[in-house]
Each structure stands twice: as structure tokens, then as C-alpha cells.
């Protein structure tokens, strides 16, 4: 140890408390920034000091976040598939047997003039009979017929981009036309699919809320255990003048770190699912003339996941630390 005479500057080191207080008051923004920087770094060091525990917590949270993301991705792809299949949605008009070829041509011309119809193709009774004859098991039965019972048929392909309501309106119009016996809309399945997708979307939303709660609980419990194991340190900090906010801040940052890391990992898992889906979707795409592409999560969603998770982590840490620190101090 040394004697006072060896320290010409010892007075500023040991006395003059007032200038110190003035200095910290004079630079509140810098002081605030330094406090936050210190807390963020301290909490990060703390997480890194127990990598296995941190990794497990992050992995659990990431899986909880990745589940709704993955379902969202799958639903998006089913929706896309529905859109592609919807492009082949045809409406078949079966005309009354009394309709002549000229009347059918007139009707077809009228239909081609409509803005909501892409293509119109007329099938004569003979063409219908030929198609039936090609189908297995029908050829023998058709020979037994004296004459062709099939009517003229018109196949209408609605304009791409029409929604379900527009198509329904078109079908109603077609049913009301003169000479039309029966109209069959192959788009009914699409309405069912849309309804199912609606249920799926709602289920994903509910799942996302529940799993967000799970993330809150995981962070909250981790912070609770952390605070409980550091009650001695908290006591020391308070004895040397730390405010409750100062003591609490590293735990809030811990929540943010947990959220950020798990959010980033969840986004990574979702991207892996995308990659896993790419190959079968490409195969499926060939069946539909390459119209089907794998639906990837938008970049903004992938970017938002870590941020939302960080917010959840902060919230979980905030809720628990307020209560736990009151107990610890």
C-alpha cells in the first residue's frame, strides 16, 4: 500500500463528491447512453457465459416462433396452388336439344363479346360422343344407342383474375340465357378451398397468439430464475447506489437478446422449410405448365420476426423483473 504523499491527485480521487454529481447531471444523454450500453453488454456477456442454457432457451423460443411461421408459409402455398388451379376453372353450358348449330354459334359469339370471359369453345354433339367413346367402358354402350342424345355444349373459361363473386355472377348470367339447359361450375371446389383457407388462417393467428404467450412465459421464467440466482449481486448493486431501474435494465436487455436470437433462428427455420418445399413444389409445378412457384415468406416478415420476438422478450422480462426484483431487494 502507499502513503498519501505519493498521490498528489488523491484529493480528487477521495473527496469532492459534489463535482461528480454535477458531472453526471451535466451529461444526462451521454450518461443514459452509457448506462444502456453497459447494461446491454453486461447482459450479453452473462448469456454467453452459460452458452448451453442460453442456447436451449433460444431454441425453445425459436421453435415456438417457427411453428406459426411455418403454418403461415404452408397456407400461403396452398393458396397459391388454389390460385393456379383456379386459372383452369371452366364453366360448362349444356344447351337444350332443340338448339340448332346456327343458334349455338350466335350464342358463342355473344359470349365472346363479354369482358369477363377469356375463351369460348363449342362442342358439337358428335364431338361429345367421340370424347365419350374414348373413355374406357363407354364405347360398347354407345353402339347400342340409335341416335346421339348429347346436346351442344359450350365451355367458357372466365378471365383470369376474376374473384369468386365475379365468377358466380357470370354463372348466374349464363343460366339465365335463352336455350341453356344446364350450367356446371367447376369452381365450387375453389369456394370450399377458400373457406378452408379462412379457417386455416384463423387457426394460424390463434396459434401465433398462444405461442407468443409461450415465448413471454419462457423469457419470464428464465429472467425469474436469473434474478433469483443473482439476489446477492442485486443487493450489492443497491448498496453501492444503483437504482431499481439500473438493476433491472440488464434483465430487460437479456429478454431482448433472447427474443432477437430466437426470432432470427425462427426465421432461419422458416427459410429451411421453404428450401425443403422447393423441390416437391417444382415437381408439382411441371404438372401445371410451370405456373406454380414455391411461395416464400416475404422479406419484411422474416425481418420483422426477430424484432417482434425482441419486443416479446422485453415484455416478458419487464413483467417478471418488476415483481421479482421487488422480492429480491
Amino acid at each position, binding site marked *: 500500500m*502507499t502513503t498519501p504523499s505519493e498521490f498528489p491527485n488523491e484529493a480528487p480521487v477521495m*473527496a469532492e463528491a459534489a463535482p461528480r454529481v454535477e458531472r453526471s447531471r451535466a451529461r444526462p444523454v451521454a450518461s443514459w447512453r452509457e448506462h444502456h450500453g453497459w447494461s446491454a453488454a453486461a447482459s450479453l456477456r452473462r448469456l454467453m457465459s452459460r452458452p448451453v442454457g442460453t442456447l436451449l432457451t433460444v431454441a425453445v423460443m425459436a421453435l415456438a416462433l417457427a411453428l406459426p411461421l411455418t403454418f403461415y408459409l404452408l397456407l400461403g402455398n396452398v393458396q397459391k396452388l388454389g390460385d393456379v388451379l383456379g386459372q383452369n376453372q371452366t364453366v360448362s353450358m349444356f344447351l337444350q336439344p332443340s338448339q340448332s348449330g346456327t343458334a349455338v354459334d350466335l350464342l358463342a359469339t355473344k359470349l365472346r363479346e363479354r369482358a369477363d370471359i377469356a375463351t369460348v369453345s363449342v362442342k358439337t354433339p358428335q364431338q361429345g360422343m367421340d370424347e365419350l367413346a374414348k373413355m374406357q367402358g363407354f364405347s360398347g354402350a354407345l353402339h347400342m344407342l340409335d341416335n346421339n342424345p348429347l346436346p351442344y355444349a359450350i365451355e367458357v373459361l372466365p378471365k383470369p383474375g376474376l374473384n369468386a363473386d365475379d365468377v358466380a355472377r357470370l354463372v348466374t348470367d349464363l343460366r339465365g340465357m335463352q336455350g341453356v339447359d344446364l350450367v356446371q361450375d367447376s369452381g365450387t371446389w375453389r369456394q370450399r378451398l377458400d373457406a378452408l383457407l379462412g379457417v386455416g388462417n384463423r387457426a394460424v393467428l390463434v396459434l401465433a397468439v398462444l405461442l407468443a404467450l409461450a415465448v413471454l412465459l419462457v423469457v419470464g421464467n428464465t429472467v425469474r430464475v436469473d434474478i433469483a440466482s443473482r439476489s446477492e449481486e442485486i443487493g450489492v448493486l443497491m448498496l*453501492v447506489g444503483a437504482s431499481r431501474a439500473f438493476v433491472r435494465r440488464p434483465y430487460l436487455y437479456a429478454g431482448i437478446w433472447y427474443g432477437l436470437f430466437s426470432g432470427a433462428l425462427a426465421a432461419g427455420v422458416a427459410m429451411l422449410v421453404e428450401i425443403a418445399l422447393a423441390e416437391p413444389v417444382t415437381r408439382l409445378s411441371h404438372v401445371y405448365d410451370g405456373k406454380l412457384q414455391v411461395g416464400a415468406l416475404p422479406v419484411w416478415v422474416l425481418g420483422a420476426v426477430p424484432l417482434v420476438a425482441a419486443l416479446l422478450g422485453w415484455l416478458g422480462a419487464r413483467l417478471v423483473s418488476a415483481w421479482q426484483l421487488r422480492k429480491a431487494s
Partner: protein
Amino acid sequence: MIRFDQVSKRYEGGHEALSQLSFHVAPGEMAFVTGHSGAGKSTLLKLLGLIERPSHGLITLDGQSLSKVGRGGIPKLRRRIGMVFQDHRLLMDRTVFANVELPLVIGGIAPVERGRRVRAALEKVGLLAYERQLPATLSTGEQQRVGIARAIVAKPTLLIADEPTGNLDPQLAVEIMSLFAEFQQVGTTVLVASHDLPLIKRMRKRVVVLDHGRLVADVAAQEVL
């Protein structure tokens, strides 16, 4: 600096640790508080650090009544006081430097200034060479000196120590007490609770003697034999 006016402290359960205690410590003075175990020495220091509140009476520090300090004001008050404990209360997972730095971080001191002052404090207690070590690698006496460096680094106007030499050998105890005396010489008010009478006599400072929470003697420095 410090004024106790008819201060009593009764804990839950009825034990009266301090009774009608009145005394005054002038700015820049060093005083020992002594007495047998349970005399109320630690309670007195706890009241000063607002770890406990008095049941009756008034305590003032630099003219400020401690009873008027609310929960939000406690951290600010504690930043004006350096506290040294018998069990050091160091953070064992942080380096010596990080331990000493804590009050400055809390006080919002800039990093460069922090580094300068931590090193000055460590140099003062003779531990500059150990700044990167963890406290667990140091001896008990060295750990106590780290605790002292932490207590003085934020330039407190008051330094209080509760049995700071309780676990130390006599030679080391003298060194630690001499260190406190040095702080007093540069204007810091120092109040040390100790039951080590031979050591207290050797220091020749004012001695406040407690017995069952009551002041039984207040011996001026020049009267200490």
C-alpha cells in the same frame, strides 16, 4: 456531517437494537463505533446507509434528514456514501477492475474517466497489478482492499465500514485501518464499526462506545490511551 438525535431502532419481534442514541460526527472526522456483539454497531451503520429506518428519532447527513429520503432518493444518497463490509460483498464473477468500477458506472461517469479513477483507487490500495484478476484469486485482505477501493472510487463524502478487519490478521488489520485514516486526512468523514479494542486504541481516533443500543462513552481522540 452526521447527527443522531434521540434515535431508537426496534426490530420486528421487539428487539431494541438502538435506544435514544444521540451523537454527532463533524465533517472530515474519523470515529470508531465499538461495543460488544449486539451492541448496535451494525444497526447504526445500516441506519446511515438507509438499509434500515429508525423507529424513533432523527438522523441527518450533511444537514439532510434521512427520514425525508423516499425510496427513490435512497440510491442517490448511497452514492454519497462509501460502504465497506466485513464480508467484502464483491461480485465474484467480475474482475477487480469491474468491481471497483461499479459505483462509477452507476454514477454515469464517462468510460475514460472511469478507467482513470478506478486505477487511481486501485493504486491507492496497492492492487493496481490485480485489476484483471477475479476476486476469488485474491487473499482475504486483498479482497477487503478491493472493497475499500470500490467504496472510495466515487469520491464519497462519508465512508462507513462495518467490522472491516474482522477476518484479517493483526498486521493486515493495522494496514487497513491506516488506509481509512489516510482518507480522513484528505477530508473524508470516516465511521468504522469494530470490536477490536487494541486496534482502535492503536489508531488514536475518537471512539463511540455502545452497550445494548445505548451510548455509554464518547471518547475524544486525544483521550484514547
